[in-house]
């Protein structure tokens, strides 16, 4: 038998083996560029202020995954307007809000819960990215920190009013965050106020960019006023609303009612652009009927319509009407056009009108009934109505007048009416006649809070379902 390997062949084979193994043990073969072609790394984002600001812009765009706060799909407005019996109608899961049959698998509830947490993650990631970052100037870090904390406070404010105590996430550490239990309502409010305090300390009076899109000092103060009102801290609420009104930055008289929700509205304290350049706002596309001869999907209830006095210009400007078979069907029309308009419609998250009504309510609770009515009348005057006929000597009557004005002024506006009903329910500080149990058929105290989404309870066994949904 011939010798299998000659010396020459051994060398050849050995060389081949070595060549193969050096080639394939090399890590270089699986080296890839630092970032994928269409994405960048977090380090690249926080490398300087010009890239950091793109992440800040991401926070203000509020629509991670398509439905962040303020709910591109209009869901916060729609679900709370249904729950508050401002409107009736809707499809599928939406109908459950009106009838208080919301289940833990309601899809809308699921997005109401999830969207703000995506937003909060972005805020926390920006805060983590700018803290102790030597690439950024201290002034820039201070400004952005203030803005981010304001946004976080805003998110938690909505969360605590929709769901009660919720898990309080202030970092990006997912291992800890995913299993956090609910914090108490008090703890959530403490966090909101701590964030707002810090924001007030850090934010300047002037807006950091054009319009009223990014937070300045008064947006934080305005939210403080709202939070303190809900917490029944009347003096604080009064002072804060008062300081916003007196700041001179905002004006309720110059912008006509028809333009209040448009870009550049003089009464806007905080509005964010509707960035869906084709479909406009979720509210606009959900509420506006397809055609003028159709019954709207969401119809304004008689109980709300009855609150509008004859001649109330808000009815003509903020409500639309379709006549079908001779019958009037009103629908919400603050956000009118499902298409973007020029000037564009913006989401109005805080506005001066609400500050007047906060100051009015706080004043009334502080027994400054004349002052309260004066603020109510400021609002009424713009709506083309005469002064309130409420008895200026009756605290109950003045509070009722404030409540009625809040109903007509702040209808279908990011949950205001629903939150009002809940915070004043069974509260002896408010006249009983207008309380939830009296005005909402089928309402029970447990229904003031929405259920936690069932999927979330499955994912986090530390969460406890809100009462009434077992």
């Amino acid at each position, binding site marked *: 038998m011939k010798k299998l390997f000659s010396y020459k062949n051994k060398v050849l084979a050995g060389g081949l083996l070595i060549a193969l193994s050096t080639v394939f043990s*090399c890590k270089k073969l699986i080296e*890839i560029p630092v970032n994928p072609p269409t994405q960048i790394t977090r380090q690249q984002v926080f490398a300087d202020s010009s890239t950091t600001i793109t*992440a800040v812009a991401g926070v203000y765009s509020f629509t991670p995954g398509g439905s962040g706060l303020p709910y591109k799909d209009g869901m916060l407005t729609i679900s709370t307007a249904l729950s508050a019996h401002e409107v009736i109608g809707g499809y599928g899961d939406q*109908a459950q809000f009106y*009838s208080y049959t919301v289940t833990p698998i309601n899809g809308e509830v699921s997005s109401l819960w999830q969207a703000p947490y995506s937003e909060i993650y972005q805020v926390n990631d920006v805060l983590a990215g700018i803290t102790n970052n030597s690439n950024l100037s201290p002034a820039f870090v201070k400004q952005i920190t203030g803005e981010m904390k304001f946004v976080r406070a805003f998110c938690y404010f909505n969360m605590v009013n929709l769901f009660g105590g919720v898990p309080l996430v202030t970092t990006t550490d997912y291992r800890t*965050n995913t299993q956090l239990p609910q914090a108490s309502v008090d703890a959530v409010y403490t966090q909101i106020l701590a964030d707002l305090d810090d924001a007030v300390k850090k934010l300047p009076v002037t807006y950091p960019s054009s319009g009223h899109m990014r937070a300045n000092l008064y947006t934080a103060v305005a939210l403080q006023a709202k939070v303190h009102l809900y917490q029944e801290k009347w003096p604080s609420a009064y002072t804060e609303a008062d300081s916003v009104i007196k700041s001179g930055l905002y004006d309720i008289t110059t912008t006509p009612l028809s333009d209040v929700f448009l870009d550049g509205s003089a009464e806007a304290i905080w509005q964010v652009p509707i960035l869906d350049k084709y479909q406009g706002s979720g509210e606009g596309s959900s509420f506006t009927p397809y055609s003028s001869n*159709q019954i709207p999907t969401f119809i304004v209830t008689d109980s709300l319509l009855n609150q509008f006095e004859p001649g109330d210009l808000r009815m003509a400007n903020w409500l639309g009407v379709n006549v079908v078979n001779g019958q009037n069907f009103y629908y919400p029309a603050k956000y009118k056009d499902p298409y973007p308009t020029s000037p564009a419609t913006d989401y109005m998250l805080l506005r001066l009108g609400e500050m007047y009504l906060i100051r009015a309510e706080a004043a009334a609770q502080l027994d400054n009934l004349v002052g309260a009515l004066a603020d109510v009348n400021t609002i009424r005057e713009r709506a083309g109505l005469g002064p309130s006929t409420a008895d200026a000597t009756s605290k109950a009557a003045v509070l009722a007048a404030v409540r009625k004005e809040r109903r007509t002024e702040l209808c279908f506006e990011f949950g205001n009416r629903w939150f009002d009903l809940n915070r004043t329910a069974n509260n002896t500080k408010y006249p009983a006649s207008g309380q939830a149990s009296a005005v909402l058929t089928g309402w029970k105290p447990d229904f003031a809070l929405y259920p936690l989404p069932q999927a979330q309870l499955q994912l986090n066994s530390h969460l406890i379902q809100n009462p009434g949904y077992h």
Partner: protein
Amino acid sequence: MYKIYSEHFVLPPGFTKKLLLFMKLTTLMLFLAFMQVSASTLAQKVTLSERNSSLTTVFEQIRNQTGYDFAYTTTTIQAAKPVTISVKNMELAEVLKKIFDDQPLDYKIDYKSVEVSQKEPSFLEGLKDKAAKFLALPAHIRGKVIDSLGQPLSGASVFLISKEPPYTYGVFTDNTGEFDFPNISQNHYTLTVTYVGYSKLEKTIQVNSKDILLRLVMHNSPSALDQIQVIGYGKESKRFSVGSVYSVGADAIEKQPVTNPLLALEGQVPGLSVIAMNGVPGSTTLVQLRGQNSLATDRLSFKPYDQPYFIVDGVPFAPQNVNVSQLSNLANGQSFSGGLDQAMGIGAFNNINPNDIESITILKDADATAIYGTKGAHGVILITTKKGKAGKTTVDINANNQVNAVARPIKLLNTQQYLQLRREAFAQDTLTPSSDPGDYVSFAPDLKIFDQNKYTNWQKIIQGNSTHNTDIHGSVSGGNGSNTFIVSGGYTRSDYNYPGSFSDQRYTLHSALTTVSANKKFDLTLITDYAYDQNNSAGGYGNGVLLPPNYPDLVDGNGKLVWNYKNVPIYTNFYAGLLQTTTLQSYNFNSSLNLNYEIVKNLKIGASMGFSRNTGTEHSIDPSTAQNPSYVNIQAAFANNATQNINIDPQINYNKTIGKGELTALLGGTYEKSTSDFYQAQAYGYSNDAFLNSINGASSLSPYDVAGLTKYVAIFGRLKYVYDQKYIIEFSGRRDGSSNFGPGNQFGSFGSLGAGWIFSEESAFKNALPFISYGKLSGSYGTTGSDASEGYKFQALYSAFPYGNTTPFQGIKQNIPINLYNPDFKWATKKSINVALDFGFFNNRLFLNATYYRDREGDQLVEYPLAAQAGFPTVYENQPADVQNKGLEFTLKSTNVKSNDFTWTSTFNISFNRNKLLAFPGLESSSYANQYVIGQPTTVVFGYRYKGINPTTGLFEYYKADGSVTSSPDYRPASQGGDAVVIGNRETNFMGGFGNNFNYKQFSFYVFCQFSSGTQPNALSALYGNNYPGFASNIPAYVLGKYWTGPGDTHATLQRLGSSYNSPYVGSPYYFAQSSGAYTNDTYLRIKTVALSYALPDAWVQKVNIKNASIFVNAQNLFTITNYKFGDPEQPGNFTNFPLQRIIAFGLNLKF
């Protein structure tokens, strides 16, 4: 009927009967096999007319006429005399007698070959031999091994073994097929020659001092046992395989009129589940081997689907069986609630023409897949396309026309039944139907405004059509011994069984070239596949079939869509979808080049290089004609995608005989680069429908793009040693690196050890049980891995705002985080044990395989679901869970009857898989706390134990955890004080298939049945999960007579009706969908394929110069026996899906 979960192997009631039927059938097949209807060899006639021709010339003549080979050595026939013979149509035996009569030669007929030897030596020669023998001089034995075409077989192993004294000599033939034993001492030897794919050649040789020159002819093995099967980076004979490998050949594939080759595997392979997502032409399929090994990811209630690694001609193809369409079409959004979470659309495998496939091999255990390392954890499917065969150039044309219809239509209510049910629903809700649209609760246009006598069978309009499909495939192939070629083209048109003119059209071009150098040292194979697929589809499918039967016409006399009927708005018009068309053009290019060179004897170096590129262009439109005229928004979407894969796999192969055994070794490496690019643009604001084909015609665009990149590198090896044709040991290993992991986690090592014992080769066994012709015990243990992640996910990434039509915020383009940061995830590891017992009975007429396996996947790499508060719904993370899948697989193949005119063969397979979560430290505090139970299958379902209908309230009732009864159970798990307990296990209890193939003269008949049994959501779950009975929506007629009619109704099996979402009784159905009442045993036996063909008599076809012609009828999904109530049991939990189709194909096959 529903089934309470049990962890034992309990057969569902009612199935026993069917199982018995299978058993009876099996027994029958066995019985027939025992009968041994034996075949008589064909009498061979020979016609010869030779004058003074050489013996070799005469042999050649006979070989050409009869196929009989002649084995001789040149020295043997040196002394032969010239031959003169003239015979006509004489029996071969007589002819041979005549030829050898006058020759100094002897001959012996041995299975299709004639061995020629010298007659007893002459006295002188004998003396010389005797002297040599006396002196015990060693002899020189040389020889050449050829196949029946006379081509040398290189690499055949040749052994000379003597008993006493025990000598073993072993060599491999060289590239000219020759072998050489220089010094063989005198003795009595057994010479064996083995070569993959050929019958073993064995003869005894008496070696004295005389040199021997042998000419050995090997024959293709008629036995499945010796046929070549493709394995990872190589080929092997089934006989010596120790891995779990199963092949499906072209014969089983081509009988099925399916366009997706994966569908042809349904029921064919033990342990392999194939699910057709829907009946849309070209849609994706799901494939899974031996159960689900990974924990759920992403969405909790759904499991991801572990799919095998696919390789086409050595080129990785369609990782995870991805879909190639991005935009919505009828194949999208067709999720049946089978609990699977898989993107749907048009599948990549739609680009492969089943007619071009030679075989599909499924590698199951670690022995077979460890060489693929991290790709192999969930099995490997190797698709081998057809190559040319040496011989006369052949043209093969196959054309067929198909008729499709819904495989298992459901019956819905007619107008009268529907309206009656609606009225009852209102009555039960104590409401009065109202024509006042302002009356939100009672507004019922179908009862008060729509025509009460109109009847439209929407189901018939939408699903009730039948379509004609066309499939044409032609190939030209041929070649000589060292070069072969094939070129084949195919055209397939599948029409959608849907209103409108929609179709999937596929054009394929396949070619393969093989060449071997003259010195046989170098060989090359080049395979190229090109496919173009055009899929025209309608937009969203919707639930059109469920429109009320008295719904107004949706199209007016002018062909315009109707949006309003007597002031009742029609929000969605089914016909709009027909105008919102989507077109997908998919281009697939798959090419592989394989080179080998023998640098020294037994050592080959080579390389495989593959390139595949699948690109797609999509376009969908929403024209004004499809829209409500008061809200027109003309838009379109454009999408492109390209996925590309390049792989280079250098290899070294080495063979050596060591002692009585042969060693084969493989060392190789691989480098692979996969890229993907997706681009999509929504285009808005068209002024006119005519512009819709142009992206430029839009007034605004919102683009989106994403690209992926992964690189792999690996070194792998395999050592196999077969000793004495009896004992086999095999080792394979791979070190794998992937760019999908962060620093420190990129590399992993995997390997396996397999062993086999062919006990039937032991003489004691042979003597004791001679009817067992083959028996093998084999087993393996090994590890494989899974890198179920995506590129770059170990980094925290930001992306430019990726969603929808979002404008920049104040001129600043937004960036948002897109994932959570976890740099630490690493390979998941699977450990597998496989033990198999193979038997061949009665000369391998009957084969039986029984396989036991146990797989355990740990370090589970999952897209771990997180509570929303974490900011993202998932993160890539390893979980310390161990998931076990173990099971049994049985295969039976038999040739029941084999005679000249009639043959009957059968196959049967059944497999049982059992899944279990073995361990999961910290399960209670994980996101899976309410989904899995340690010690139970990962397919368990949590929910409420269903009781029935409360005769008083008419509501569904459930058991609470404490045993009491309620209509509104607490959804929390029992461990947390609620009522949700484990109510079922959705794993498949058993599945399999059996086929019979009959050939009688010119007729061939094949019937294949597929069966499966498991617990699945029943059709009621879909009924109550969606629009529940009584709503303004049509429902299956099944509900009639079953719902509760009033207090005291104790016979009802469905709860009281509800008129709408405002019904006071809508609460309890929500619980129903999560109760044991919504699950049922889903067992079916489906006559999957029936194929009948008739070969036209040769006398007819030869007149028109055709070699072969046959006509055939093939049918798919012909008939189903099931306990499933309504809807298709293959699409459980849904009855509005695009239904699976029954296909009947009529065709013609011609060979020139």
